[in-house]
């Protein structure tokens, strides 16, 4: 059974286990966000909604919003803008990039899969490119969900996402910032995004993997 809490709700007496989404006052743990309590291990409140805060090592999907030599400025669905330094590309055995040529490699509105290299106290975010730099090519669709729902879409040890990929016949890439890239046939993409929508809506309920499996099987037999 899940328990929904709102900011200020008492969660636990065990201040030592207080984790994300909580604060401690006079030895008691209270919720800071509106969400569901998870007390396996650390006591956390998994928020229903919220913005992505970049953490070093995360893989995220970004969109180029500005080119300002020698950086590409990237929107990563967070309150803060991030940047990719030109050297991220030229060090990859490439040729020298001239001042005006940056948009030939990554242009405005291009989607990139990037890794967060560093976040400093002033929230300057440096990104590094993954091998397959463009992801927004070909028949695909980008959807955005609250980043707190990402673990649920992936499932325990990737069980949920593996099932989705198999049954929808799609390539699905789930990034830590809540952006999901789905590639495949139009019909399959539609199904996959509908199922992901259902997962985000019911993320706080139990037995979700089974229900998703059922839904996917029923769609299969209809076809």
């Amino acid at each position, binding site marked *: 059974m899940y328990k929904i809490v709102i*900011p200020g709700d008492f969660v636990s007496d065990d201040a030592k286990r207080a984790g994300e989404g909580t604060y401690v006052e006079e030895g008691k743990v209270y919720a800071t966000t509106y969400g569901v309590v998870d007390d396996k291990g650390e006591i956390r409140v998994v928020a229903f909604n919220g913005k992505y805060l970049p953490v070093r090592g995360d893989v995220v999907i970004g969109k180029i919003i500005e080119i300002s030599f020698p950086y590409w400025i990237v929107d990563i669905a967070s*309150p803060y*803008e991030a940047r990719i330094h030109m050297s991220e590309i030229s060090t990859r055995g490439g040729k020298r990039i001239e001042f005006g040529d940056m948009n030939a490699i990554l242009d405005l509105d291009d989607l990139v899969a990037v890794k967060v290299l560093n976040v400093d106290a002033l929230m300057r975010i440096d990104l590094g490119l993954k091998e397959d730099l463009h992801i927004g090519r070909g028949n695909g669709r980008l959807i955005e*969900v609250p980043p707190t729902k990402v673990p649920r879409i992936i499932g325990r040890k990737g069980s949920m996402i593996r099932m989705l990929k198999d049954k929808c016949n799609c390539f699905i890439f789930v990034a830590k910032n809540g952006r999901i890239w789905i590639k495949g046939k139009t019909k399959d993409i539609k199904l996959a995004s509908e199922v992901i929508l259902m997962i985000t*809506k019911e993320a706080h309920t139990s037995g979700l993997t089974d229900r998703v499996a059922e839904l996917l099987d029923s769609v299969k037999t209809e076809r």
Partner: protein
Amino acid sequence: MKKEGEIEFIKDGKRVDGRSFDELRNIKIDVGVLKRADGSCYFELGNNKVLAAVYGPREMHPRHAQDAKMAVVKFRYNMAPFSVDDRKRPGPDRRSVEISKVSREALDPVILREYYPKAAIEVYVEILQSDAGTRTAGINAASVALADAGVPMRDLVSSVAVGKVGGEVVLDLNAVEDNYGEADMPIAMIARRNTITALQMDGNLTKDEFEKGLKLAMKACQQIYELQRTALIGRYDKDESANFKDRST
């Protein structure tokens, strides 16, 4: 202003609209009514109809107003031109600028601003229909909308007005009582801790009346808090998809 005695405020222990001294008007709360806002809330307090939308945390503009240590809260209280009997001239005026500032400061103590340095949390409160006590309705709505947006907070803020009409201290004034009464005192507080985050007073109260009013307000804030809480908890039993954004490429 009408002369005293022209309106009979209290009749057989009841007020002009039939309420008792310590009775709130009807409250209705809907959470997540706006699809494109990060968090939203529609709030009704009697004939007051208020819509609150929260955006962010997101990038702060103008840049020079950023705070390197914590997020900046922006609050805009705005009355629709059709919200009052005589058309209100649209746009900010002296009164709405003051209310925006006061409301922002009422919510500031609960928002954990240091979680989002340099960012802005924007709260927009639109008064669709007004019947005295819109600032308290606005604060209640904004508090729920902030929670809905997933903004980290220490607690919720609840707000209500007390006042003095016909020589009696009463709760939650309506338009007639507010306009022709003797005093009006809006209060915002963290209901569970009885911590006051905002208090204004228009008119005069004696010390005893003030304390009596404060007690009424504290009790009423508890009631409002429970309604805010029920609205938030009840939301996830409903089928809804406001959090989902779809962008085809």
